[in-house]
């Protein structure tokens, strides 16, 4: 598995707390391995399996988002479009046209990535503050279009009938997707693959450029990097991961709610990334876990979950902008 000491080593600074450091240092170095280990045992820690699957999926979604926001420094408010198009792009072929899962899944990713190319192109023509606004506006276009296309997508009621009861691999093994544990571990395999690829990207020359870009854009341009094009590419890469998450979501739920495309979903993934810690590898999964657990718990007590989300946003921004994992990493100077 790809381990990355370069990126960590390049920005590490010695800090005061040496006691707990070794453990977390090890985690940071072997981040892919540790993430996988954690995710392997997750179903047994989570209150119920479906929640664990959601954590996987939203963790992946947040990872894609983190590439754009945490690593490349661009605040996108339009990732719902990528996630949602991944979901519809996989769900519609299955539900309406009877495509098999192994065609629909890549198709969903492809559609989401195409949207990433288009949205990313428009959005990266505008910098800073505009970026958030443009991504929001463009993702709302996707929302409207899908909303109106009732014949294809089910409109307001969402897409139904994305049923993939079982998967047979090369005619050898048959996996029953109705069993939550089986579903979890099958999806985990895909997530692990995605994690590995993501880790490679971060460890690549391109990953170094993203770090530089986030640090000092003007300097990066003066060194010879096309800032716009780099950002666009990062956005497209991000849409691959977020789109994949969406496609998996469709298969997981067997339906695609229209809310996946609304900008509140963009806010949710943003919240998860913030909560976990942007610009950290493990953060998105931590954030997804905490958010979904919290939602689960709070929804039993009150229907006003959005109020809690809002307060969480405000508190995070004011007091813990680094998030849970990010703060931990910072305090330990990793």
């Amino acid at each position: 598995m790809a381990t990355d000491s370069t990126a960590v080593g390049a920005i590490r600074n010695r800090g005061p707390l040496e006691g707990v450091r070794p453990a977390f240092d090890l985690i940071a170095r072997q981040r892919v391995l540790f993430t996988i280990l954690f995710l392997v045992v997750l179903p047994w820690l989570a209150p119920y399996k479906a929640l664990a699957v959601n954590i996987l999926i939203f963790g992946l979604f947040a990872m894609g988002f983190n590439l754009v926001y945490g690593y490349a420094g661009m605040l996108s408010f339009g990732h719902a479009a990528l996630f949602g198009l991944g979901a519809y792009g996989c769900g519609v072929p299955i539900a309406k046209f009877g495509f098999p899962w192994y065609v629909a899944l890549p198709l969903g990713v492809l559609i989401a990535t195409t949207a990433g190319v288009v949205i990313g192109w428009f959005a990266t023509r505008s910098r800073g503050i505009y970026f958030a606004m443009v991504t929001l506006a463009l993702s709302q276009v996707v929302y409207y279009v899908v909303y109106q296309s009732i014949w294809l997508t089910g409109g307001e009621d969402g897409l139904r009938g994305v049923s993939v009861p079982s998967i047979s691999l090369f005619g050898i093994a048959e996996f029953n997707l109705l069993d939550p544990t089986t579903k979890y571990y099958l999806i985990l395999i895909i997530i692990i693959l995605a994690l590995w690829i993501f880790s490679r990207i971060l460890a690549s020359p391109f990953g170094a450029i993203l770090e530089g870009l986030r640090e000092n854009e003007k300097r990066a341009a003066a060194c010879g990097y096309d800032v716009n094009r780099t950002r666009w590419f990062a956005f497209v890469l991000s849409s691959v991961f977020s789109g994949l998450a969406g496609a998996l979501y469709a298969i997981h739920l067997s339906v695609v709610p229209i809310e996946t495309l609304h900008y509140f979903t963009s806010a949710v993934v943003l919240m998860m990334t913030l909560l976990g810690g942007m610009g950290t590898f493990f953060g998105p999964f931590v954030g997804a876990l905490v958010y979904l657990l919290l939602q689960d718990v709070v929804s039993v007590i009150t229907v006003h979950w959005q109020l809690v989300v809002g307060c969480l946003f405000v508190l995070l921004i004011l007091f813990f902008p680094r998030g849970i994992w990010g703060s931990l990493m910072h305090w330990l100077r990793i």
Partner: protein
Amino acid sequence: MSTTPVIATEGVGKRFGGFRALSDVTVAFYSGRLTSIIGPNGAGKSTFFNVLSGAFPPSEGRVLFEGRDITGTPQHVFPHLGIAKSFQITNLFPQLTALENVRLAAQAMKSRFDIWTKRETLSELKEKAEDLLNRVGLSKRRNDLAANLAHGEQRSLEIAVALASDPKVLLLDEPTAGMSPEEARAMMDLILKLNEQCSVILVEHRMKLVMGISDRIIVLHHGQLLAEGTPDEIRNHDEVRRVYLGQSV
């Protein structure tokens, strides 16, 4: 010395809204020379530097590189042409190490969209970065964060970063800004040495520093070209003396 100037400007002017910073500056820089651009504060030196280095295009006129019109070329293309710059206010990647700063700059010439190879395998970039740090005397500080370097060291790092693109022309904007006299001396010696490899154009407002090392000097005043010539010619130039009267020469 070839007859085509390595960089030339023709009638370059720059307006910011209602304010005219430069007007009709026509000047040629020849290969291998060390040319200094001087002038009192507000003369338009920085603006001219920014036009030369691609930070923004001129409002009027043309900028030529080896005879080719490069007016309006975006900033990020300049290092690929062979023009590198350092900034007046230190502009590095603060949370990256000195080594990584230079390595990343060197990487721009090699790989910009590679998402698969591991960075370490591009070892030639690391070697180049080590070599450049050595040349500017920062080898010992290679693993320190740029933000933690002393001011003078940061200025030297800026130069190493600029050199990473193997430039034909090195543009330096007040490289000795904020330095003590000893540090400034050392910097000038370094620049002189670098001049053996590439043309150097530097902006300075301390006339004394550049007199000894420049092949040619250009004097700007109120955004216009006041004088151009060898240090001796400039020293004895009536207009220049008048403009600088009251300021230390």
